[in-house]
């Protein structure tokens, strides 16, 4: 699936993927989790990887099986500042009233595994979410 790397493009893709997951009969908690993780991962691409240009695209693969859901996102934007397994990052402290910085911690807390590599000018993020 090709997703326009815009906020609207991300929203449209999420609505479609959640509708597809729902049809597979998976429970609401699971597709809710997939929706949060995918939203944060795709919004990161829109806001950071493609922050300096428009017309970018995310190539998205969603594979659902008995053990859970695999997400793979590819884009040609700027690289992340880490490779391999997602580093541990604490959510910002609530008392500081943070208005951002929630995205990667949410991905980390909701996924079984999150792995990133950069190859041939392309970002590839693979995330697995177990069925709860």
């Amino acid at each position, binding site marked *: 699936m090709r997703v326009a790397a815009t*906020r*609207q493009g*991300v*929203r449209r893709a*999420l609505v479609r993927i959640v509708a597809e997951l729902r049809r597979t009969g998976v429970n*609401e*908690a699971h597709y*809710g*989790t997939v*929706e*949060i993780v995918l*939203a*944060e991962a795709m*919004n990161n691409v*829109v*806001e950071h990887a493609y922050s300096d240009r428009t017309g970018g695209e995310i190539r998205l693969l969603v594979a659902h099986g008995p053990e859970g859901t695999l997400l793979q996102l590819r884009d040609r934007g700027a690289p992340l500042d880490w490779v391999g397994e997602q580093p541990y990052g604490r*959510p*910002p402290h*609530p*008392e500081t*009233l*943070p*208005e*951002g*910085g*929630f*995205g990667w*911690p*949410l991905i980390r*807390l*909701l996924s079984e595994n999150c792995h990133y590599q950069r190859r041939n000018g392309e970002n590839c993020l693979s995330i697995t979410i177990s069925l709860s």
Partner: protein
Amino acid sequence: MQLTTRQIGNTLIIRVAERRLDAVVSIRFKEQMREATADGPPRVILDLGNVTFLDSSGLGAVVGVHKLLGPARRLELAGITPNVGKVLQLTRMDSIFTIHRHIADAICSHDGAA
């Protein structure tokens, strides 16, 4: 971005009419909340009963509104649906808001609100 407001006693209740409070609408949401709460009563309840999806941008905007209200006023939340509750809980931002299950509980919980 559609918000509906009503005032009961010294409480302003703002209902988000949208299903999604996400990166698409977060900036507009914050601006409209600023207008809706200007010169209003000290207690503001944000009714999220219609909202089935909140992302980190939407959450950031809710926190931003809380800050806009300043120390003399407060923002409370009501009508949290399961997936919105999950985001609030995992980020531990549920610890900074008073959260009511339903808007009716929120109104009843306050003396002199009627």
